[in-house]
Structure formats: C-alpha cells, structure tokens
C-alpha cells in the first residue's frame, strides 16, 4: 500500500477515532447500547485497518502476536475471576451484589464547586461494578481474538511459536 498516500493518511487520521469510539462503546455498555463484544470488534477493527494498510510487520510491532495470544486468555480470566471473587466473598458465582464496597461511591464534598449535575456514582459498585468488569473481560478477549483471526489469515506462517 506504499503507493497510496491518500489511504495511508486517511487511515492515520481515522484510527484514533475508531479506538476512541471503541472505548466509548465499551464504557457506555453498562448503561446503554454497546458492551464488550461490540467494543472489542471496533477496537480490533482499528488494528486490522492498520495492518491492512501498513502491512503485517507494522501491526505486529504494535500488537505482538504473543501478547495478543495471552490477552485472549486474560479476558476470560477477568470474566471468570469476577465471578470467583463474588464466590469468595460469600455469594453465588457472579452474584455482583457482593461487590458493594462503599468506597468513594459518591462524589467527595471537595468537588462540590463543580458546576452542573453531580454524577450518582463516582466509583461503581455492586451490580454496576460487576457488569463493568465482566464487559471489560469480554472486550479484551474479543479484541484479541479478532486480531488473532486476522493474523492467522494474513500470515502464511504459524501465528504462534
């Protein structure tokens, strides 16, 4: 793609927005439409676009296949680990009500000078925190798996050593 300067420039312009949009969908997911799966796909789309335009070695430098492979596992562990923590706290698997911690759940009084409506939750807890962590796990795994699939199709040699 070296001979297509327009594509290269536009890609560089687009990628930050794609990543940002991915993050928006990720963190918006616990209140509105969106969530880990969609965010993961969008996030991976940025990596794949980069790989398509700048070539496999370039994207390998940004997201090394070895790291991506570990990330596929890490996401699942974050998800199941959330459930396990709930269980260790004395509830059933994935019973997020056990994740109530009461630490900084409301905006401290020191920030009262800020204009406008105060957010209801400062640090998430309980069901909110549970969904947040689980969606994070999904997001990580989906990003990694989509990228892995791209690597597997794009590279002729084996993806992992």
């Amino acid at each position, binding site marked *: 793609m070296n001979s297509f300067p327009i594509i290269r420039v536009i890609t560089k312009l687009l990628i930050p927005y794609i990543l940002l949009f991915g993050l928006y969908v990720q963190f918006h997911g616990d209140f509105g439409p969106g969530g880990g799966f969609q965010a993961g796909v969008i996030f991976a789309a940025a990596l794949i676009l980069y790989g398509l335009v700048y070539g496999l070695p370039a994207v390998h430098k940004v997201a090394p296949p070895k790291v991506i492979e570990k990330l*596929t*596992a890490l996401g*699942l562990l974050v998800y199941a680990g959330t459930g*396990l923590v709930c269980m260790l706290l004395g509830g*059933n698997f994935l019973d997020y009500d056990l994740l109530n911690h009461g630490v900084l759940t409301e905006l401290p009084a020191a920030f009262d000078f800020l204009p406008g409506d105060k957010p209801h939750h400062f640090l998430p807890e309980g069901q909110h925190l549970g969904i947040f962590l689980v969606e994070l796990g999904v997001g990580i795994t989906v990003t990694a798996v989509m990228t892995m699939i791209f690597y597997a199709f794009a590279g002729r040699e*084996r993806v992992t050593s």
Partner: protein
Amino acid sequence: MIEQLPVLVIVIPLMAAPLFILIGNRKLVLLLTQLVCWTVFGIAVTLLSRMQDGPISYELGGWPSPYGIVYTVDYLSSFVMLFVSGLGAIVITYAPQSIKKEVHQSKHTLFYASYLLCMTGLLGMCITGDLFNVFVFLEISSLSSYALISLGKTRRAPLAALHYLIIGTVGATFFLIGIGLLYQMTGTLNMADIAARIQPIDHSRTLLVAFAFMTVGLFIKMAVFPLHTWLPNAYTYAPSVVTCFIAATATKVSVYAFIRLIYVIFTPQFAFERLPLDQALMAFSLVGIFVASAAAIYQTNIKRLLAYSSVAQIGYMLLGISMSNVGGLTAGITHMFNHALIKGGLFMVVGCFALRIGSVKLDDLRGAGKTMPLTSFAWVVGGLGLIGLPMTAGFVSKWLLLTSALSLGLWPVAVLMLLSSLLAVVYIWRVVEILYFSPPSHLAQSAKEAPMAMLIPTYVVIGSTIVFGCWTVYSAGIAHAAAQSLLGISQAGGVQ
C-alpha cells in the same frame, strides 16, 4: 463451600484453560490438567453421593429461577457428569506419552487447554437447567473438539475436523433454531419453566417445528445412523487421546441432552404418542446398528472399525430411550455408562498400539499379540464387553434392553438385537485373529510392550467393565433411579 460445588465443576476447568495459556510451561500445564481433572471427578462423585437428599439447584448470580440461569443436579445429570469427568481424568493420566508422540510440541499447552474446555462444555451440557445454556456449552465442547481433532498427525486430520465442523455447525444451528422457536412460544428459556408452559396437547405447528429442528440437530451430534458421516473420519484421524475422550463422552452427552429434551421438556406423550418418534427411533436404531456393524467388519483401520461400532452402539441407547418405560430408559442410560467405559478402554488400547507400532492399520498390527501381550489381552477383554458376553458391562445393558423389549412384546426387536451382537463378534474376532493368529508384520515384530504409565489406566478402565458387569449397584442402580425420576417428572408435566 459445599453448596458451591455445582458451579465449581464448571468454573475450575473453565478457568484453568486460559490460565494455561498464560503459564505456557508444558510440564506444569500437564500436571495442572491432571490435577484439575481429578478434582472435577472428585466434585462429581461428591455431587452424586448427595443425591439421596433430592436434586440440588444452584442459582447463578443469585438470580432466582426462571429469571436467571439455574444449574440442576439430579440423578441423571450427576451420573453422566460422573463418567464424563471420570473418563476425562483417566484418559489424561494415560495421555502424556501418547500426546508427546502424536501432537507437535508447540501445541501441547493449547492441547491441554482445549481438552479442559471440551470437558467444561460436556459437563456444562449435563448440569445446566437453561436451554440456551445447553446450546452455549454444546458449542464450547464442539469447537474445542474440532480444534483437538485437527491436531492429528496426518494431513487428513484438519480435513476431518473441517468436515465435522461444517456438519456439527448445522446440527448446532438446528438446535438453536428450535430453542428460538420454543422461546418465541413460551417466553422463557428455563427448561422446567418451558415444560410447564407448553401444553403437550397443543396442536401448534411452531411446537412441532421446534421439536423437529432440535431432534435433528441432536441426531447429528449423536451421530445417529443416517447423520453419522462426520464421525468415522473424525475419530480415525484425531490424536489417539482425543479419540479416547471424545468417543467415550461426547456422543453420550448429546444422548443425555436428547433424553432431557424428550422426557423433561416435550414429555413422552408428545414425542411418542402424538408423534411417532418411538417407531422412527426404533427403525433408525436398528438399521443403524446393522449397517454400521456391517461397515465395521470391512474396515482396515482399527480406529475406523471402532468408530463404526460407536455409531452402532448409539443405536442401542436410542432403542432403550424409544421404549419410554422405566426398563427401557434404564437400559439406555446404563448403556451410555457401560459403552463409555468399553469404548474408552478400547480406544486406549488402540492408543497403546499407535504408540509402539506407530500405525493403526490392521495389516501392521498382525502378530502384535506376541510382542505386546498385555495390550492385546486388554483388547480381548474390552471386545468381549462390546459383544456383550455375560460378566461384562456390555451384557448388563443388553440384558436390560432385551428384557425390556420382551416385556413390551417387541419380539422382532429382541431377535434383531441378538443377531446384531453376532456382527460385533465378527469385527472383534477379526482383530483378535489378526493380533494372535497371523504371521507378525515388520512393525509389530520390533514393537515393545506399551509403557506401564499407559497400561495401568487402560487396565483400570477395561477392568471396570468387568467390575460393572458383575456388580451393578452403581451403574444400573443409579440409571434406574434416574429413569424413575425422569418418568415421574414427565407424568407431572402431563398433568399440567
């Protein structure tokens, strides 16, 4: 902690698999896999031992049923989990040397991770009380088994896995379509709730279509005769250890899901009285038993021979299920257990041959009885079980099936069953003759006896087929309790 056991049986292997990828050390991973498998087996035993206090149900996330996902442990599910986890543990104890020879070293970590995922999926299908969850676990076990099969040494392994993937996905999709239609009808995914909401007398076409889709989808996964084409290649080209595990467990868990579908959700009145599924099942089973057994006789590859025999044996299980009485159902469930042991054991024997002789072609196995006497003897004992000789596990289930058929006055079925056992004699004897009474091949002549690390687990499984042939408290006994509770539930469902 004890009340968390129903979910731990799923969570432990599920979390171990990604952990392995992060660890990446082959030896540590192998050790952990064995530890995890035996722990899960221990949990399954504990769950089954608590069954006399009634079924256990576990609400995920603290959401009450039918809103949340519920895991239910009853006689049937804990019994199936027991042999799935038990064989999973024994096979992985047997596995290391065989895997070392048959799977590329760089894939070992992923192999063990997939193995545990496959077990997670199979156990999950047993324990969950949520219909959509069954589909999810079905996919977990199927996808990981496609990956495991594709790791075989020959280049035909990926092809066999792809073939299985395509057909298996059709099956899973059919199952999902059925679930979707049921959900549309009832607005719930909880199995007990669906059962309470669908009226068995209801002449709704949606219900019929849902039932048809789900039945055909599971038939593919079970490898019932006309839909079995994926199975022989998948079993033949997969690594020996994978074949041991999948042949012993995967199709049985689908049979289990089928039993749940008929006896818990749709009720036998719907399946067998309104629809002629019992006659259809009987016809498919009997034709399958004969065709697959006859095909087994002509195979030149011992793994393929056993694969065709598996297709035939599924027929016996379905035959029992189609009888729709306690006796027949007991026979079907007992045969799931007994056949898991017998076929698992026989494939373990084949794994020993594959390790030492390096081939599973019958021509290369000629005369191996002299150089590998212990392995060959294990084949003889396991083979007798497959035929159904008295004092072996196979006899128990066939006897139950036979008495049940006779009590229903199904004389032709009984006669055909006995005739089909003769076909099993032919294909087992053919291998015995090749092992003991043929001039040895070059490969067999130079072969050594299989290592003790593999022979001992093999003999544990093969020996247990004898144990459960003489002592049936924990095989047929539990199957009987499971059958009774299933028919009890379905009668209650019919009243509603």
